[in-house]
């Protein structure tokens, strides 16, 4: 493990990690305000990527204009998806058992992925050349240019989201509801509206992540796997902590690009090469975190001794 390998892995990892952080933000936000673990989050990432690519391609305009319109359209569609899901599926299920809610989100994921793959096929689809494809050299470190752009966009969005939650009325209402539902409700915060906004924001964050990942790697039917990486990030940071989710995203990105890639290429265990280990790094992280510190780095410590 040379220094060069570590530095390059860190850079690429931070770039990917910023996208994971954005996706994980949606995840944590939804859990924090509604206590629902959305296992369809990965499919919402898929939704964003597929829809943005299809829109960009179908609009007969200069590429950058088509892309800008497509992004706007996708985000609007994502918000609508969030509202529809909350109103149509989740509201009848409030107060139901954990198992029902988990299964409903799984089923929702089935439907979204089925529709996307049904409409546009399961092969890898690429954006038309919107952003330059070259690489950036920092000394002798090589980072893809797309990575830098998407990291920058993700960072801007992360800052934007945190400003929104800090200063806007809706954001304050959402934080209040997340903090203490009953009190917030007594003080006039409409919980229904907060839940609807939470779903919409989660869908927007996920879709934006899908667009950024699509710019980088293209989109195919397996993109929902990223949702599980975001899950690992959220678990690591603490399920109900938004800063934790963001930090977790960066950590998962770096871990998978340094440790995962290293084990992938160099470690041989019992005569078996661990090829593809990069892909399960997030789950190893999940298991370790759950064993050692189930509430994550910044999550609320909820001690129950049995």
């Amino acid at each position, binding site marked *: 493990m040379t220094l060069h390998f570590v530095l390059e892995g860190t850079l690429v990892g931070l770039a990917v990690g910023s996208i994971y952080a954005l996706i994980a933000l949606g995840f944590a936000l939804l859990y924090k305000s509604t206590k629902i673990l959305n296992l369809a989050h990965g499919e919402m990432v898929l939704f964003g990527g597929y829809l943005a690519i299809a829109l960009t391609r179908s609009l007969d305009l200069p590429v950058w204009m088509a892309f800008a319109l497509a992004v706007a359209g996708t985000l609007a569609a994502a918000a609508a998806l969030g509202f529809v899901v909350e109103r149509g599926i989740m509201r009848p299920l409030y107060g139901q058992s954990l198992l029902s809610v988990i299964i409903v989100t799984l089923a929702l994921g089935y439907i979204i992925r089925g529709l996307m793959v049904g409409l546009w096929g399961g092969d890898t689809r690429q954006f038309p050349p919107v952003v330059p494809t070259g690489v950036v050299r920092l000394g002798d470190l090589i980072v893809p240019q797309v990575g830098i752009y998407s990291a920058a966009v993700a960072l801007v969005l992360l800052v934007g989201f945190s400003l929104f939650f800090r200063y806007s009325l809706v954001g304050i209402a959402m934080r209040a509801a997340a903090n203490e539902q009953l009190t917030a409700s007594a003080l006039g915060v409409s919980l229904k509206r907060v839940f609807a906004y939470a779903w919409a924001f989660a869908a927007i964050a996920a879709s934006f992540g899908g667009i950024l990942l699509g710019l980088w790697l293209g989109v195919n039917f397996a993109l929902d796997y990223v949702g599980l990486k975001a899950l690992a990030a959220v678990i690591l940071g603490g399920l109900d902590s938004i800063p934790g989710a963001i930090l977790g995203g960066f950590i998962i990105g770096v871990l998978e690009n340094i440790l995962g890639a290293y084990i992938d290429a160099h470690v041989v265990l019992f005569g078996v090469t661990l090829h593809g280990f990069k892909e399960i790094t997030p789950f190893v992280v999940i298991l370790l975190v759950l064993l050692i510190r189930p509430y994550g780095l910044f999550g609320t410590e909820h001690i129950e001794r*049995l």
Partner: protein
Amino acid sequence: MSVRPAGDFKTTYVRDMALLDTVFYRVGFALLLAALLAAPLVLGRYLFLLNTIGIFALGAVGLSLLTGFAGQISLGHSAFMAIGAYASWYVTTRLGAPFPAALAFAGAATFAVGAIVGLPSLRIKGLYLAIATMAFQFITEYVVIHTAGGMGGTVVPSASLFGVQIRTETQFYYLLLPIWVAGGVFAANLVRGRVGLALMAVRDRDYAAQVLGVNLLRYKTLAFALGASYAGVAGSLFAHYNRVIGAEHFTILQSIDFIAMIVIGGLTSIWGPHLGAALVILLNQGLRYVTPSLVTLLPTFARAATPLREIVFGALLIGLLIWEPGGLAMLFRKLKRYMDLWPFPH
């Protein structure tokens, strides 16, 4: 649902706790068994459906013990099935053991693995447990791909019993049926006995259960071990039935299918997993059968046809959970009650 036929007075506890407590159920069960025994004569080349249903129903019974009765959510049930299948393959091909030994070994091995995987359930619960079992699922998939030949490529010999090679669907059916019925009856007995009551107490509130003297360590690990053991037996049967196993048979999607089976069938019913498995398998095969003819009718439909199954499954699950969380078993119970009183509403 406490409606009893007139004149059916329970005078002893034994009669009150009987599994088949009325004449209707006793006759019905006897008829069901007879129908199952005679099924190969009627079904002909469709017997594979019943074989598949039987195998997955066994697995689903395990998950319903674990999730429905003990309340521990598992998103890694097909990983246990994989362990059972590969254990059975290893014992029959590498050690040359006969099939019954392999079946027993698969059950025992998954019992042990299940107990180990279940240990964290003492420390983490609910959501976190679901996520941990999901991680277990993915890691098992990874291990299978990297140690046991991976995708689609492990050939398992056909089962043999008392010197008879079990090759045809009918032979396999008569091998499967006793195991299926015994597994179902065993689970039903377990649920009405001490173990089942303890599991349900753990499900409803583990604190309270412990105060009442239920040993949580013992019953939570027991639930996992039993659930895993059912899946392991199902996996072993699947391996010797399909005769080719690979990582693609035991993915997270299969785990979700198991959950779909117990939810569709009814979470807290001993009939639920069987009904759910039957519906899921029939729906699967039905869609596979219907899709080509739909495509010839509507050629533009061709691309949407592949994920049709996912969409139908998702919609079915969501609809059931919103309108009838009790699943098929509850629908049957409601139907029976309605028929009991028909034509009067009360």
